[in-house]
């Protein structure tokens, strides 16, 4: 298992070392039920085995595959050869890879960072002091978009954007506009904003609820305008939530496979974001080794986002008990 760290010195029942700054009453570490370590280990093992088999092992295997010329069929399928870092250098030089990376960047920035976070915050801010039917209706609709299965959502949008009978063309009086063909990237960006805004909305609503009303009232008594209140009172208080939100939705959008259901990467690879690119390369074209190499690059990007997030979170936690 992934634990390679040395056994903790603070574990010895009467040990005097290790554990800097142990409180007189370390409530966190009280074995309140008298479970004991062997039983605790037995409790943890089944979960760890499943995680090891179906999460850790595939991740490691991805790295290995990335170093081979493994293919789904043919000679290389029977006897894959190590090709070292060739797949990676090929990927980085490959036009279709950089094309896909660029599209993914557009997709993440447009739909998550600007779209979901912006719209989510706007809704939370506008609705912050409202109770009643209007707010409940807005929240219910936004949440419905979030919880429905992606296959259903995808078809709803295909129907909405249909060239001949789509509801959108009927509503805008633009008959014959094939949105998914003429504006494919814009379509999946708007689609993803629609689908994912709920998370940001709820997070910001919770964050705004934590801004003490007395702070806003102090600002208002001093004559601050709405924008000044936002800048001077609200943003400094919810900076941590903004960070959490941006990193999580970026991570999720980066790994989102749903655009495939809408456009299958087309037309002419114009919506071939990274997950779709990998799927087509590895499982449709059978280039498993090359696909794995790109998966590794994707894992690396995920890792960077996650580490940045956790470092910032930890730093904030250390700052917090001041």
């Amino acid at each position, binding site marked *: 298992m992934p634990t390679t760290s040395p056994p903790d010195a603070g574990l010895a029942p009467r040990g*005097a070392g*290790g554990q*800097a700054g142990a409180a*007189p009453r*370390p409530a966190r570490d009280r074995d309140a039920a008298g479970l004991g370590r062997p039983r605790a280990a037995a409790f943890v093992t089944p979960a760890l085995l499943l995680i090891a088999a179906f999460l850790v092992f595939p991740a490691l295997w991805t790295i290995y595959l990335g170093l081979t010329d493994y293919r789904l069929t043919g000679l290389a399928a029977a006897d894959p050869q190590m090709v070292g870092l060739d797949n990676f250098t090929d990927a980085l030089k490959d036009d279709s890879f950089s094309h896909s990376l660029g599209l993914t960047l557009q997709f993440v920035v447009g739909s998550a960072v600007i779209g979901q976070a912006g719209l989510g915050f706007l809704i939370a801010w506008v609705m912050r002091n409202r109770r009643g039917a209007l707010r409940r209706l807005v929240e219910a609709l936004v949440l419905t978009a979030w919880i429905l299965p992606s296959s259903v959502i995808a078809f709803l949008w295909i129907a909405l954007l249909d060239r001949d009978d789509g509801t959108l063309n009927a509503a805008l009086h633009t008959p014959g506009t094939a949105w998914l063909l003429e504006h494919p990237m814009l379509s999946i960006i708007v689609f993803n904003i629609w689908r994912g805004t709920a998370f940001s909305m709820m997070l910001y609503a919770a964050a705004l609820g934590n801004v003490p009303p007395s702070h806003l009232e102090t600002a208002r008594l001093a004559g601050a305008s709405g924008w000044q209140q936002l800048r001077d009172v609200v943003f400094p208080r919810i900076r941590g939530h903004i960070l959490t939100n941006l990193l999580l939705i970026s991570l999720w959008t980066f790994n989102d496979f749903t655009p495939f259901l809408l456009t299958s990467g087309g037309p002419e690879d114009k919506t071939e974001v990274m997950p779709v690119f990998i799927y087509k390369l590895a499982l449709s074209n059978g280039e498993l080794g090359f696909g794995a190499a790109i998966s590794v690059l994707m894992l690396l990007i995920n890792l960077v986002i996650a580490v940045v997030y956790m470092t910032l979170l930890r730093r904030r936690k250390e700052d917090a008990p001041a």
Partner: protein
Amino acid sequence: MADISMAALTKVYPGGVRALDGIDLTIADGEFFALLGPSGCGKTTLLRTLAGLETASSGSVGIGGRDVTALPPGRRDVAMVFQDYALFPHMSVSDNIAYPLRIQKVPGATRREKAAQTAAELGLTDYLDRRPGQLSGGQQQRVALARAMACHPQVFLFDEPLSNLDARMRLEARTFLKRLQRELGVTTVFVTHDQAEALALADRIAVMESGRIRQLGTPAEVFRYPANTFVASFIGSTPMNLLDGQVAGGRIDVAGALLPVPEGLEEGLAEGEKLVYGIRPEYLGLAEGPAEGALRGAVRVVENLGSAQLVTLEGESGFVQAVVDEDRRLTPGEIGHAVPRRDRALLYRDGELLNRAPAESGPAGRPGEGEAA
């Protein structure tokens, strides 16, 4: 029923924090005993070590003559009432009270009967089918007590029994608790940080600081003769005045005021020796005019205590507080003369008490006793 004995009990947490530092203590059968001290003094650790929830690093614990140091909590025959009562929210009052019996595999019908019986003793009959969440704080406390009583343990352990109640309920519950302990006659140890609670409830008090017992005695002893300046400043609803002084011609010179030496201490004092003169605000009277042996100061603050007033004087010796009669008219700025009661004045040398408690006031030995010459 049983006595409790602790010998050289020490608890060191990983990281080197000594929560208990060589505690020697014997608690008599049927005694109502308080562990008193500020937070972090080790009182809760001591209680949890008695319960078996913490393992002592060294030393031993005996209950009723049986060495229980290595026994798990369930086999020590003690019952504990937690600060938050720890009533299981998913069980009815009846099931909560009967839980210890369920563990002892008592059949269901007998269990319910016993629970109803115990509940009746504490006036909980009407609430047997309710959930703990539907009860008031006082009722929850009584359910917790009933659960502790149901298994007829040798020892009760209470962790801050009154701290979760509001101020008015607390007084009521205090009286109730004392009566219950008298009736049951079970050896009871409780932890509190509230000196008034300890004084009111306990037969004997151990005042603790950083893992050690600083004084052990009856409430009267601890209040009248605090063994050291730590206990002196900790006990009492208004803190004791502790003033720096010097022996001068058979008197104590406190910033120019010459105060009489407390009775029985005239012998062992050396001229010019530096001492701390202690007097409770309750034992300082405010003279009508300039008086001999009085602490002089300007009235700075007057606090109404209801039936009395707490006056803070600022003089040469710093701030001195005195409790005066409710009828006395005082205006800030006027000069007051505070005269101590000689039979209540205390002297401390190097933080330890010089006065000797009268012999009949209790069996317990105090650290610092016998140092007075």
